[in-house]
């Protein structure tokens, strides 16, 4: 080994994953600059190692279990365990309720969008059934979902915008989020178009193109590709637009919540 060691070789050697330990050892023994650089690496990582974690007592596991007990599905885990695992009054655990709550909220949003923006049938024969949810409550759910979508999308774009410069970048995690955001974005864009909101459609349109770009890129992209994406995000000022939109939606959500609370009181 005649050239100096790269920092990647040093990092792998430090973690015992070099695969060429004897060569690196020999080189470090004979090369002053590399030895000094490696000692710096050791010092930096030693500081990280010293990073302390708050201690938890020996019975921490029991505390966690006690908290979990009240949340877990009592039916699934049988109750014949020394009476310590008490069945709850409800058959379903809290998480199940949350899951159903999520499904219900999604259905309400979908129903609201469909009802509000889909074309009316030629011969309306559907008799409207009882409405258990007020229009304000539905709007509240819709606004909340919309704001979440805008914030999630910002997160995806920020991950790309702040990706490290130089070398290859793995964007697999961002792609998975972008794919989810893309599906939601199409629904919201259609809804906005039907509602005659060209400004919103335009922003969601721009967002869709960028999300498509991310989803269809390879999971590891070159520095040039990531720069291109970054430039596109910056050129369209999409992050700023999403932020403003999300802020408006959250404000509107608060107004609706206040209105709902005023009516109920």
């Amino acid at each position, binding site marked *: 080994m005649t050239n100096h060691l790269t*920092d*990647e070789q040093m*990092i*792998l050697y430090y*973690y015992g*994953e070099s695969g060429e330990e004897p060569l690196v050892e020999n080189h470090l023994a004979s090369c002053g600059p590399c030895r000094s650089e490696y000692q*710096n*690496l050791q*010092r*930096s*990582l030693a*500081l*990280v*190692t*010293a*990073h*302390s*974690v*708050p201690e*938890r007592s020996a019975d*921490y*596991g*029991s*505390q*966690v*279990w006690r*908290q*979990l007990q009240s*949340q*877990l*599905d009592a039916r*699934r*885990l*049988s*109750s014949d*365990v*020394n009476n*310590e*695992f008490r069945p709850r009054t409800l058959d379903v655990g809290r*998480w199940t309720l949350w899951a159903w709550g999520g499904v219900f909220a999604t259905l309400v949003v979908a129903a609201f969008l469909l009802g509000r923006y889909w074309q009316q049938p030629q011969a309306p024969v559907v008799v409207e059934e009882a409405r258990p949810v007020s229009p304000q409550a539905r709007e509240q759910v819709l606004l909340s979902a919309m704001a979440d979508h805008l*914030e*999630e999308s*910002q*997160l995806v774009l*920020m*991950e790309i915008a*702040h*990706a*490290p410069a130089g*070398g*290859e970048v*793995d964007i*697999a*995690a961002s792609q998975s*989020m972008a794919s989810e955001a893309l599906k939601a974005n199409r629904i919201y864009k259609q809804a906005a178009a039907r509602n005659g909101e060209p400004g919103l459609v335009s922003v969601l349109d721009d967002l869709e193109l960028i999300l498509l770009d991310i989803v269809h890129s390879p*999971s*590891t992209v070159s520095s040039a590709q990531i720069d291109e994406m970054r430039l596109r995000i910056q050129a369209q000022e999409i992050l700023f637009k999403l*932020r403003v939109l*999300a802020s408006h939606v959250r404000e509107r959500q608060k107004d609706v919540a206040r209105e709902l609370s005023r009516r109920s009181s």
Partner: protein
Amino acid sequence: MILLSCLLLFCFDPTESGDLRLNMSMEENDIAAVARAREGDGEAFRLLVERHSRSIFRLAYRLTGSEQDSEDLVQETFMRAFRKLNSFEQRANFGTWLYRIAVNCSMDLIRKRRIHEQLHEEDADCGGAGAPHNGPNSDGRIYQIEVQQRVRSALKDLSPLERAAFVLRHFEGMSIEEIGDALGVRSSAAKHSIFRAVRKMRRALEPIVSQI
């Protein structure tokens, strides 16, 4: 005879072998406990929670840097594990499987936290983030606090993937291949995330290291 005893002592490290036995026995116990928990044995799931809570807390804390978030993540991890218990493959290591869940929960949280921080950064009160220059602390204590803050801040500046890969490699001693598996990315991606993370950590700690 003495020579033979020395040779045996030299070749046979009782501590290492003890650890190995302990780990193997823990794995066997975990697998048996998972099998019983799947059949509805609450006591078995309790054993798993009690055995792994502290390590999951440590991992969550290193990933999030927040005690409260880590407490919540421990709960969330076991809730998810409980729901996915049927998808756990008996051949796998329960601890590694649980780590994977904890890392995913943590990464979700970090991503959400990041966007909220960036969205509300103008409202954030950053007071108190600097080293406490006034106070009864000794120089050594102040130095330690500064190091801790720099490490925490450097970890926070890593992307979620970089942070997870680095924490799993540096603190948890997982191999690059295991990290790729745990994070659902290729080994090369895990390796490059570690490289980037180490470079960033070094840059952040440079002012301190240069004084050592």
